[in-house]
């Protein structure tokens, strides 16, 4: 075993209304990858923020390279050799990839001039190492959220660090990108770095990590080599109880066709014909950039439709804004909750009812607070959202709990068609199952559900029918019985069926 780089002991941290960490330990060893797992809101991100000095700890000690330390802020911990890739991206969309990577550390010549060529070359090399085929001169805003995540990773690698922390790095990555990241992590391990890896994808933990630290409700539960655990026992330690079948598929008699697109075209979408019936879940698979999100945004009126039409219950509808879509009974939960879904500064309550406020107010505009409060409390309970109260700002919730609020917000509009774009991204195993069960409840009530997901087991486990997209077109369609991972992947890369 390598030597201990970093040791945290008895860490405590409270926020108004919440004790987020309560006596947590963590050890990072050179040449080993430490997984940090726990349910949404268990305190993983908070622990990392305490570690890097973003938050001040209330109690506990921190030993780094044999010395007791307290970092006053991320700049200090960064300088000492601890890099972190945060769960929430912190990049500037108007700057180039290279400028983002070297922000604040631009190399300058003798006249104070930025050495652009050197910067671009170094950035290009980093991108190549991560298997990204983009020029580092590209404006960051042009990248998809997955690629942006890779830029964050490139940035962390560009520092001379001993410890690299990754908070749910694969959340928005495709399988290929994830593989590229794993190659990098293996290289880091060989080069004697210490790595902390946070993820809700347990399979990844078994693939890439050596040890695991488990948290539950802010408390330290266990630290052990991954080899001593099975997926089941790990889940049990995380949630404190056994979980049965992860994908509780139910059979529901299919009703009439509820939503249909007829040769729908939009930016990145080419003549797509998609059908969803009442009580049906249609999974939409494909690689990143296949046009799935673009299609959904076009149906929802967030992106302009350039051809074809949308038919609901046999009637052609005109949708040019999200308002039209919501009025037609379509709800859309975006994959990018921070940019498109939530208003981080507003409370859980205000976010949840925002799209459905008409249901909670008088025609003249007066809001019925009691009615609103009851509905929100009920959703907090059914979704098991961890928040001190409905008045908490959504930005203070853990990532997974934010996602639950985003889904609840869509459901509050009582839609007939529910479009979920990567709904379980960043959601823990237990909560995932809760979300699946909720989706099933709505399915039983006759809701039509479109499930866009890059999580193959999820698509296979939940959908009645699976549609695969490639370069803006539908390249394959399967019933649940005939689909499997290989055939879907084949269609996703462009083989038609």
């Amino acid at each position, binding site marked *: 075993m390598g030597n201990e780089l970093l040791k945290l002991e008895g860490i405590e941290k*409270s926020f108004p*209304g919440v004790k987020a960490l309560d006596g947590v330990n963590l050890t990072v060893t050179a040449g080993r990858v430490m997984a940090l797992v726990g349910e949404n809101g268990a305190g993983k991100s908070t622990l990392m923020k305490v570690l890097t000095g973003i938050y001040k700890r209330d109690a506990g000690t921190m030993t780094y390279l044999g010395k007791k330390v307290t970092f006053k802020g991320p700049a200090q911990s960064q300088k000492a050799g601890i890099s972190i890739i945060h769960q929430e991206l912190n990049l500037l969309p108007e700057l180039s990839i290279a400028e983002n990577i070297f922000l604040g550390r631009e190399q300058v010549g003798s006249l104070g001039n930025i050495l652009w060529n050197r910067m671009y070359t170094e950035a290009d090399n980093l991108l190549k190492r991560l298997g990204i085929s983009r020029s580092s001169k590209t404006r960051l805003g042009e990248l998809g959220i997955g690629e942006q995540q890779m830029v964050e990773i490139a940035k962390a690698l560009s520092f001379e660090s001993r410890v690299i922390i990754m908070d749910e790095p694969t959340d928005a990555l495709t399988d290929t990108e994830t593989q590229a990241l794993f190659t990098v992590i293996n290289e880091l391990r060989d080069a004697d770095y210490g790595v902390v890896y946070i993820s809700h994808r347990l399979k990844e933990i078994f693939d890439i990590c050596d040890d695991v630290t488990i948290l539950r409700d802010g408390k330290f539960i266990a630290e052990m080599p991954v080899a001593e655990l099975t997926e089941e026992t790990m889940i049990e330690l995380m949630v404190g109880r056994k979980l049965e079948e992860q994908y509780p598929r139910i059979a529901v008699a299919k009703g009439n066709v509820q939503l249909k697109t007829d040769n729908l075209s939009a930016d990145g979408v080419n003549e797509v014909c998609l059908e969803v019936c009442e009580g049906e879940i249609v999974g939409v698979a494909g690689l990143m950039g296949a046009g799935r999100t673009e299609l959904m945004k076009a149906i929802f009126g967030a992106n302009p439709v350039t051809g074809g039409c949308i038919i609901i219950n046999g009637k052609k509808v005109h949708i040019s*804004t*999200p308002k039209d879509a919501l009025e037609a009974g379509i709800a859309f939960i*975006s994959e990018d909750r921070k940019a*498109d*879904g939530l208003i981080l500064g*507003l409370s859980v309550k205000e976010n949840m009812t925002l799209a459905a406020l008409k249901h909670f107010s008088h025609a003249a505009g007066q*809001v019925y607070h009691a009615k609103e409060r009851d509905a929100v409390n009920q959703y907090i309970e059914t979704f098991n959202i961890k928040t001190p109260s409905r008045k908490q700002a959504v930005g203070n919730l853990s990532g997974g709990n934010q996602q639950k609020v985003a889904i609840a917000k869509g459901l509050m509009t009582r839609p007939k068609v529910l479009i979920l774009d990567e709904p379980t991204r960043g959601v823990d195993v237990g909560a995932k199952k809760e979300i699946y069960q909720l989706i099933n409840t709505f399915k039983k009530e006759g809701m039509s559900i479109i499930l866009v997901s890059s999580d193959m087991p999820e698509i296979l486990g939940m959908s009645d029918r699976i549609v695969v997209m490639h370069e803006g077109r539908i390249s394959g369609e399967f019933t649940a019985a005939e689909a499997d991972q290989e055939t879907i992947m084949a269609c996703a890369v462009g083989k038609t069926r």
Partner: protein
Amino acid sequence: MTIQKKSLSTRLIEQKTLIALLAMILVVSLLNPNFFTTGNILNILRQTAVNAVIAVGMTMVILTAGIDLSVGSILALCGAIGASLIAAELPVAVAVGTSLAAGAIVGGVTGIIIAKGKVQAFIATLVAMTLVRGLTLVYTDGRPISTGFTDVADSFAVIGTGYLFGVPVPVWIMAVTFLGAWYLLNHTRLGRYIYALGGNETATRLSGINVDRIKIYVYAISGVLSALAGLIVTSRLSSAQPTAGAGYELDAIAAVVLGGTSLMGGKGTIIGTLLGALIIGFLNNALNLLDVSSYYQMIAKALVILLAVLIDTKSK
């Protein structure tokens, strides 16, 4: 996850604007016994009313992450319109209604330019500020418009100089404006949407909300309230000055910011703005009572605002 109660100290810190106001009142009362008298307090409230009414509209605009620099010019134009109608001996209700409507139209058009034309609020209202000031000078020919010495003018004067139950009418107007704004922001859909828009415009649009309309509404409201302030000023002086209201946007913005509303939008309260406006009002009065020369008053006011904002950012 254990739930904890908010401690008393955190609650107190949240009320720092109130504490600042009370501290100021206490200190000045000790320095000058004439300060804390009913007469003087009512006087301060009356003097605060104009800025406070404008600051209410400004709060809504700033909550949407916008800004309105045109308030002072609208005040002057609508004051002049009101004065000329009174001078023409039209009924007070007609003069007031026309003046308020003009404020709504000017504000609404600015809002349309911002929402539909995608012009930045700073630029659009800066243009409006100059343009409307120009219109006022043209309309008044650069001279004050007197409301005259008719019965109509006398009843119009009540708006700025009258008393109701011993309290000046402008103070009543201010109170009603704040109550209305408080209700709108906390108990109506529009209020909720104003906060949402300032917090995240994309997410608000994707929630099926017509964000353009919200923007137009807030600038129209700001316009109406500027016109109302213009009526108070005109009524008090029995005449409309073409240069009235110059620089008032800064006092209004200062009141909003002192009240803890974020210029980034989405965060803030109307109560905070009331306290902010009161602080500025009390400060002006206190500096007068303490015989500080008007040049030094400006400096002192600026420093107090700076201090308050610094304390605010520090405690975040």
